């Protein structure tokens, strides 16, 4: 979808240069080709220091998760009881070992793998499901809308953590189940959002035009409207990654999520709390990882949101406000 839009922008650009006067001597000549909305967003994103930092940090974590095998010689599941609770830095155990003698750094790396994949997959599934439901109920309205929105109301009225625990207790907690369950309990915000924008968009004239030339309802929903509703969906999907990582860690911490021999940050924290008296440092690392990754993801989400928002300029709000104040004080 992005490619298509970019392509259009490019083709429009080449047409302009072919017709217009591209001489560089004239100062007021605009850019060679007008940048498309995605390109502008990209540019704005890249000029946002927080967002870029977040992206770099996230990339580091993703790479660490992918190449975990090569980054540590230790096996995260096997430990030597003779080496239990070593302090950081002994015998090549950078962060020491836990109470079973397992290398903490190796466990962190492999936890990153599970926590990140749960975060991304949950966001993906719930955004797809939420968009679909939101699109259908927003576009068609009527009783379909009523049913789905009541369902959203119902699910929003049960505190998320309780709902997750209830379903986990019933169906058990494999990694694949956890992804399904977390997705099942987090599609509601996307559905509401998409429904809202579809309610607005379906009144547009181009929808009328599309109907007039005989485009089917599904064609309108997926080809014409989805494209225009995609900006908030992307932002929401990004923020959902962070939320899913937090939920996973909470559930695993409570002992209901990831089970041995798998490991995740939340699982490590629950372990750490148990052995708090023996090794207080153990709790620090997984928590820091969660904090840093979720912060990074949230920064990226904010960056994308600001990038896609045409009202937001690259100038920070703070400076704008200062100028406004100065302007109003100088007496109008």
């Amino acid at each position: 979808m992005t490619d298509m839009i970019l392509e259009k922008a490019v083709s429009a650009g080449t047409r302009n240069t072919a017709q217009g006067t591209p001489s560089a001597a004239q100062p007021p000549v605009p850019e060679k080709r007008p940048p498309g909305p995605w390109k502008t967003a990209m540019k704005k994103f890249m000029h946002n220091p927080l967002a870029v930092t977040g992206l770099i940090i996230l990339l580091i974590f993703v790479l660490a998760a992918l190449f975990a095998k090569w980054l540590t010689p230790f096996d995260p599941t096997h430990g030597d009881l003779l080496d239990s609770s070593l302090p950081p830095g002994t015998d090549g155990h950078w962060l020491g070992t836990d109470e079973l003698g397992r290398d903490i750094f190796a466990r962190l790396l492999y936890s990153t793998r599970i926590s990140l994949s749960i975060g991304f997959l949950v966001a993906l599934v719930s955004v797809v499901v939420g968009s679909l439901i939101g699109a259908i109920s927003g576009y068609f309205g009527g009783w379909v809308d009523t049913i789905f929105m009541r369902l959203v109301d119902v699910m929003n009225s049960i505190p998320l953590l309780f709902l997750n625990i209830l379903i986990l207790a019933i169906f058990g907690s494999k990694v694949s189940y956890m992804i399904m369950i977390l997705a099942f309990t987090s599609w509601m915000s996307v559905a509401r959002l998409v429904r809202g924008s579809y309610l607005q968009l379906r009144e547009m004239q181009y929808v009328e035009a599309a109907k007039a030339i005989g485009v089917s309802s599904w064609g309108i929903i997926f080809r014409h409207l989805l494209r225009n509703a995609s900006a908030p969906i992307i932002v929401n999907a990004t923020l959902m990654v962070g939320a899913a990582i937090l939920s996973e860690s909470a559930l695993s911490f409570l002992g209901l999520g990831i089970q041995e021999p798998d490991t995740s940050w939340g699982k490590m924290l629950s372990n750490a709390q148990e052995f708090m008296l023996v090794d207080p440092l153990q709790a620090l690392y997984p928590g820091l990882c969660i904090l840093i990754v979720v912060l990074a993801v949230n920064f990226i989400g904010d960056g994308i949101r600001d990038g896609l928002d045409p009202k937001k300029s690259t100038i920070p709000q703070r400076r704008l406000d200062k100028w406004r104040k100065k302007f109003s004080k100088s007496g109008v």
Partner: protein
Amino acid sequence: MTEYLIRRIIQSVLVLFLISILSFALIHAAPGGPTQIFLSPNLSAEAGKIQAHNLGLDRPVPVQYFIWLGNLLQGDLGYTFKNHIPVGKILWPTVGNTMVLMGAAWLFSLIIAIPWGIYNSTRQYGISDQTSNIIAYLGFAMPTFWFGIILQQYFALKLGWLPLSDMYTMGKQGNMLDLLYHLILPVTVLTLGFLAAYSKYSRASMIDVLDQDYIRTARAKGLKERRVVFRHALRNALIPIITVLGLDLAVLVGGAALTESVFNWPGMGRLFVQMAVAREYSVLMSITLLVSVFVILGNLLADILYAIVDPRVQLGRSGGASS
């Protein structure tokens, strides 16, 4: 007003009804099914069949649902699977404990957050405002239970200033001072999350109001800034905050459940987690419903309060804020 009230209440009851159907359906989808919920495990096969018949477990699921609902409405929450204790007996004592913890955290965060937000709105981008921004970012990204563990390690284990966990010291049950002493850490943990959100909301709504014409008029007629902020702006700025208080209840309850587990607080959330591990479905269902009632009541109250406080809200025509 009455018409609006009645409509909202009916709406809430409907949502509750649907929640009960959802949780009932979930439990019936569980491996092992409903027999686990109602039958004692010590029964022989024949006795089990008779018991199942007596309890109506051989009837179609919708019929079973209405029987269960009827019992529930009469206050009968069922029995635990393992020891056959009435659910109410273990559930009700924990509710009060959760209320104490949540109420304290809620009050505490409001007392700090609203004045802080107001202060920040008058000094935008100052040091205090930036601090609140950073805390907000951290508060949204940090697992609350991790913050709890870190506080435990530092203040309870390392410094020994505060109790590690539990609600009372052994043998001091019911001692008010001891309770307050034990409340400090969990309330701090819970407050951090809400502090950020509430102070941001109150800052935003205050800035909104301070931009309005009547504030300019108040300033133009020469009122002192303090009078403008506290008498003119604050009243209207508080209105949107009320709705936020209601909406956040669901999050607050969830946060409380995690905090209770970290600090071994004998509340509803910890009971829920314990019972989830033990797969006591009847307790899980009761708590889910109870918590939902709590959240829905909170939303309803917030809506009603909003309507009472703000005369601009058109009653009855908006059709409820939730749809």
